[in-house]
């Protein structure tokens, strides 16, 4: 498609199309400047001992420079390793499942004989997205609460002993993975469904005439044509590998002490450290996460570019 290397060597003239395209992109660019780039001066707070002198800007300018002092607490925590392991571990599983499952389901749902049924299923699968984590945490509580939960009531009804779910770490990795997939199911499917919809039906017609089975059609037509989107979702997900959903890892486990080693991620630990911290320390933590995210996304993009240059994002 693109002759990227070719384009880089030519110094093309500025055409009218370029002006028009620039104008077309202008409103969004203004948005980015106002809402993303202007606030970036705040990154400098991470390096200062923030004190109040007057208005906000004068506070930022006049506060004393402290170098990396605000960053210390992140690296002096003994739980850093456990927490990093949890974050990366869960995220890697989430990335794989979060792409594989919605893709497979998107392929399947289009094949149903009854399109109406497909619509109904899809609507229902989207519902969890609208339950905020606070509500989901309440729902999980209603199932797993020791004395009032549905699961324990069921168990005691059968004559078994009730289980103190929130204090048993061994089940929780499965719970957390399940809940993450469950909540994002409908959302993920939408992207892939839209891609599949955009595939020209003549490809399939030609394949059928050539005697291809459904499985072969999926393997040789649908998936390859979705490659670009899947790779893009993969790179974006990898770029966020150090971020986790705070609601899932803090509110759902109810901050239970027993679950600390299996349910605490970087975001949760930093939240706990920052409860009485200064704004400088909070900025420092955001800064570090940003840098890590930037590095990982560039790395992911570079790896993809090695394997398949056309699929890379940049």
């Amino acid at each position: 498609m693109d002759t990227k290397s070719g384009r880089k060597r030519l110094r093309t003239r500025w055409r009218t199309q370029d002006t028009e395209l620039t104008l077309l992109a202008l409103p969004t660019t203004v948005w980015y400047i106002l809402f993303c780039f202007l606030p970036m001066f705040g990154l400098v707070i991470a390096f200062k001992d923030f004190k109040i002198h007057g208005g906000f800007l004068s506070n930022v300018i006049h506060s004393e420079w402290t170098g990396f002092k605000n960053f210390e607490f992140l690296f002096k925590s003994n739980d850093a390793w456990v927490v990093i392991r949890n974050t990366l571990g869960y995220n890697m599983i989430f990335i794989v499942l979060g792409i594989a499952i919605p893709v497979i389901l998107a392929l399947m749902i289009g094949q149903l004989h009854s399109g109406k049924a497909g619509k109904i299923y899809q609507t229902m699968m989207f519902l969890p997205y609208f339950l905020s984590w606070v509500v989901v945490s309440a729902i999980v509580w209603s199932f797993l609460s020791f004395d009032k939960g549905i699961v324990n009531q069921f168990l005691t009804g059968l004559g078994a002993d009730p289980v103190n779910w929130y204090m048993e770490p061994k089940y929780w990795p499965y719970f957390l993975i399940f809940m993450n997939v469950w909540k994002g199911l409908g959302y993920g499917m939408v992207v892939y469904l839209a891609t599949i919809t955009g595939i020209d039906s003549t490809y399939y017609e030609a394949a059928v005439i050539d005697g291809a089975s459904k499985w072969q059609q999926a393997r040789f037509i649908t998936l390859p044509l979705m490659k670009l989107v899947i790779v893009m979702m993969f790179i974006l997900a990898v770029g966020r590998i150090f971020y986790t959903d705070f609601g899932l890892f803090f509110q759902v486990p109810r901050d239970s002490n027993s679950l600390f080693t299996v349910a605490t991620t970087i975001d949760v630990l930093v939240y706990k450290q920052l409860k009485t911290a200064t704004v400088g320390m909070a900025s420092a933590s955001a800064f570090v996460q940003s840098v890590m995210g930037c590095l990982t996304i560039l790395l992911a993009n570079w790896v993809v570019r090695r394997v398949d240059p056309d699929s890379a994002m940049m």
Partner: protein
Amino acid sequence: MTKTKKKWLAMGAAAALLTTALAGCGDSNSKSEPSSSPSNSGTQTAEASQSAGSGEVPTLVWWTIGGQVPANFDKAIAAMNEYTAEKIGVKIDIKVASWGDWDTKINTIVNTGEPFDIMFTNNSKYNQQVNMGAFADLTDLVQSETPDLYNFVPQKVWDGTKIGGKIYSVPTYKDSSLTQYWVFDDKYVQKYGIDTAGIKTLGDLDKAFRDMKAGEGKSFYPLSLTQGDGFNGFFNGYDDMTLGLPPIGVKVDDASRKAVSVLEQPDVMNDLKQLHQWYKDGIVNPDAPTKTEANKARPFFAAQAFPGAEASWQITEGVEKYTMFQIFGPIYTTSTIQGSLNAISANSKYKNEALKYLQLVNTDPKLRNMLAFGELGVDYNNVDGEKVIERISDTWPLAAYTQGTFFNLAVTKGAPVDQWDQVRKLNDQATSSAILGFALDISELGTEVANTKAVWDKYRYELLTGASDPEKMVPRIVTELKAAGLDKLMTAAQEQIDTYFQ
């Protein structure tokens, strides 16, 4: 959609963006934004009418904590403003940060320098906010501008607000000394013949609990605990220097003022072992470390209170009679005094007016009642002048303890008429912690504080509800705390204490 329509839409959106940007860029304090809500905000009208030439009556902004704002909020505030404008020429605009949002919201407001005049704060944030320079130094101002207020609040209580020897807020003089009560549902006291007068320590509760458990059955838990509370008042014997980290403290009656590792003290260890024994024997509910909301009508609980409180609990918990008895205190510590403070912004243009307003709140019963209960006639009615009132709604979002003193506040119908006098008596009898007036300066200890608190959070729920075995866990916790900087904190604390009290 046709292409022309799309083109116009695109242009319109771009125009809207640019206009908003331009409108905002010019004047940073402009308050003329069109609000799209059907009912207009009281703030806008109050300010508009005020600047329309109604004299020099300034409207102060007061940030406080509370619940859902009801529909009659603006009317209630307007009634208060009418009264105060006449009396002292000041009006107020109360902004409510709800309980759940307060933390983030207040941090953002203070950090970004958003203008305000008065702000509610407490020991969880006070120290840090003062260190940041957010609040005005009131030491001289309060004595010169509002001597009534200064004389009304006892010296001990003013001392509790001092940081670096200066006063940065107006403390709420209420049950500022801590008195701890243990409360039994009376029906169990009668049924099992519990001798409440003979109970003086945690261990003394053992017999009562075991009798109750034996009598009521397997799924009855005499001591029902929650995650956030644990056994309320467990660390009352140790002053935490407003640090909020229980493992470091000074024993309240320790004349030598030594900062110690609290978890390793023998009396604390004994109590922890007792809790653990109870947990194992089913006295404490097994899910206590993860249970956030307390059960209603608990057979036993511990709480900070004052005489007459059982009347209120009987109503809210739906229990016929509660028997409560004093177990600890009354005692003043810096933390207990800092439970409710109202500070004035360092950048406020109306510091004197703000102080005068706070003085009026603390001395004038009519204003005090309006602030605490709401709109007269809608939220409450006067039963005996401004001394006794009856509440007729439960939607007023503000909590009395965040605003001002209890001693000019009306008593609600049904509670003992001399309730506040009794509280005052308790305060007068109160002893002082050995380090009263001292608050730990954490400006150089940020890293250690952050990390030790994170470690404590990892273990505290299970330790304080008895779920974990203290003999195994305490050594482990202390080792981790030390790795996170506990020793540095203790050394710094001791140095500061010694300097402060020399």
